[in-house]
């Protein structure tokens, strides 16, 4: 199998037939052997029926139906788990992405990139309510994760299968797919793709809850940098409290010597010193706990790393795939 196309669907009864027609037409022009994996994310309308009908007439289609709605990340993960193609392309179920961009994505994969992300430079959405917040979020994600992508929200992406197998998506991780995928050291590339306004229904996935995004970002940041050495990460986190301890301590020393007390020394600053010191010590100790957890866990760094093996010379015929 050469190519797997994964499409998450949630209440898309109007667009699913058109989607199938467009995608198969575009994929047919690629001249590659492909499969189409449609993930029904617990739709409550007639999507499932339509999918059954599509399945009955197209042997290249595989449908995964969820028991209930689990969100886009889980849907994509289910698609990845089913995918058998060497390259996996994902796109939105609402026809906002143009299947004719497949060729462009695949060209960059063939050039040697592991992840190719679509960038909807000319987004057909409202400026204030959708584009501005998403620009801010993308900037922040880029700064914090070190994978500067203009458009993390674009579902149209292509991956090499090995990269997909290393990732584990859940909750709302689909917002940080490119950074998540770069956990294993993949080469990422961004290309400008077409974007069309919604033809049917309303948008279902929005950047609604900011704090969730922020906390997820913190998780990713931690997973990205320091999963294998958490003690250092916690030590880093404790630095502000070390600073607080020193500052409060210095203040109390200063007060002790510089003031002439009328009715005793104020206890506030020594107490603050102690509190900050507690937090500092707490974080350092938690870091060791985290080390312990990682040590006894089943996480192996070698499994999470994308590696290429090159062989040459006299044994070149025993070439190993990666």
């Amino acid at each position: 199998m050469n190519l797997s196309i994964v499409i998450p669907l949630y209440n898309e009864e109007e667009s699913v037939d058109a989607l199938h027609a467009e995608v198969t037409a575009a994929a047919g022009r690629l001249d590659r052997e492909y499969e189409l994996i449609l993930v029904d994310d617990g739709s409550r309308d007639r999507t499932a029926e339509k999918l059954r009908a599509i399945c009955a007439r197209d042997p290249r289609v595989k449908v995964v139906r969820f028991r209930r709605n689990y969100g886009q990340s889980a849907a994509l993960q289910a698609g990845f788990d089913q995918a058998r193609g060497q390259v996996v392309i994902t796109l939105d179920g609402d026809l906002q992405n143009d299947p004719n961009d497949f060729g462009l994505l695949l060209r960059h994969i063939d050039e040697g990139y592991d992840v190719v992300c679509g960038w909807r430079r000319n987004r057909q959405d409202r400026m204030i309510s959708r584009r501005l917040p998403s620009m801010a979020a993308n900037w922040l994600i880029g700064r914090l994760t070190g994978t500067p992508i203009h458009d993390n929200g674009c579902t149209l992406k292509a991956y090499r299968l090995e990269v997909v197998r290393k990732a584990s998506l859940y909750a709302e991780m689909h917002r940080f797919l490119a950074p998540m995928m770069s956990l294993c050291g993949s080469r990422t590339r961004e290309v400008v793709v077409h974007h069309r306004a919604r033809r049917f229904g309303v948008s279902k996935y929005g950047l609604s809850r900011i704090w969730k995004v922020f906390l997820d970002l913190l998780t990713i940041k931690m997973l990205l940098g320091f999963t294998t050495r958490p003690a250092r990460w916690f030590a880093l986190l404790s630095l502000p409290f070390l600073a607080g301890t020193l500052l409060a301590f210095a203040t109390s020393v200063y007060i002790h010597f510089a003031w002439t007390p009328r009715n005793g020394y104020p206890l506030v600053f020594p107490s603050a010193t102690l509190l900050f010191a507690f937090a500092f010590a707490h974080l350092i100790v938690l870091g060791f706990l985290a080390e312990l957890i990682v040590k006894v866990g089943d996480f192996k760094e070698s499994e999470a790393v994308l590696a290429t093996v090159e062989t040459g010379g006299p044994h070149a015929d025993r070439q190993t795939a990666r």
Partner: protein
Amino acid sequence: MRIARLRGEPEVSVVIPVVERYGDLRQLYEEFAAELERLGRPAEFLFVVDDSQRGALPVLRALQEESAGEILIVTMGGAFGESAALTLGMEKARGETILTLASYFQVDPRGLAGAFDALERLDGGADLVVGRRHPRIDSTFNRLQSRLFHSVVSRLTGTRFHDISCGFKLMRRRVARELNLYGGLHRFVPLLALSRGFTVKEIPLRQRDEDRGTRYHGTGAYLGRMLDILTVFFLTRFTRTPLRFFGLLGTALFFLGFGIDLIAVVQRAVADQGLADRPILLLGVLLMVLGVQTLSLGLIGEIIIFTHARNIREYRVAEVIRGAGGHRPREVPQPEAESKKAATAS
């Protein structure tokens, strides 16, 4: 009433945990067995007896001797509680459908027909049918407790059940297999099933007179229940994303403390109010410290999930349909097992 001998495999397994208190087990068995027989459902009965209720064993053994029906008595070696008893009973059950009952009369057996109908109806049968004692005939105090308990539960989990702790539950085997009950989780079976993506239906059942007695519990029991509710709230919403739970709490505490101290500092700078002699400064610092500690515990949670449960998938598949007719509903391999395979295959 004579109960006929079971031929072949049972269709329904009735699991009765005898854990806290028990009523007339013989009558309970006879009435439910008779009703199941009337409905034409070959059944087996499993009594799981907690070590603390050994007094029930002679009655059950006598029943086993006398009755022609299939009765299994499982005795637990210690006082392990109801969740353990239910899990044990469900593991030993052979039927495709599992019925759990309280060890005393809560509801009338005549409601069984309706329950089976709700489970099996063609237009969208449920995976789990929960009984609701309705109308309630027991004491005002019991009703008040129950009302309070359920209002907290529905507030926290966003579900609408009226009587989740009713012992009467009829479920498909696949539900029982995924529940994984422990501690006090047996009270929340409908919520756990819902979060696993199963369809759950509540049906009204006539309450029996035997269920009338007022139930008082010690303060410890109520406290324990509140903690159980929180556990379920956490388990059904945040298992995969612990930082969201701890993080929200932690950041809220942190910013509260930060705000308090900021105001104190501004007042010192502008309004010439002393800083060093104000205890509120300490409150602010304390809240900030608490916030960071809570948040960091969430980070520990994330590390646990990442290093121990990377391959657990949160989604549950209803079915996989393959193109051109190859259609297999029912027993789909669930993703945990599958992802391991995928990992080794690649």
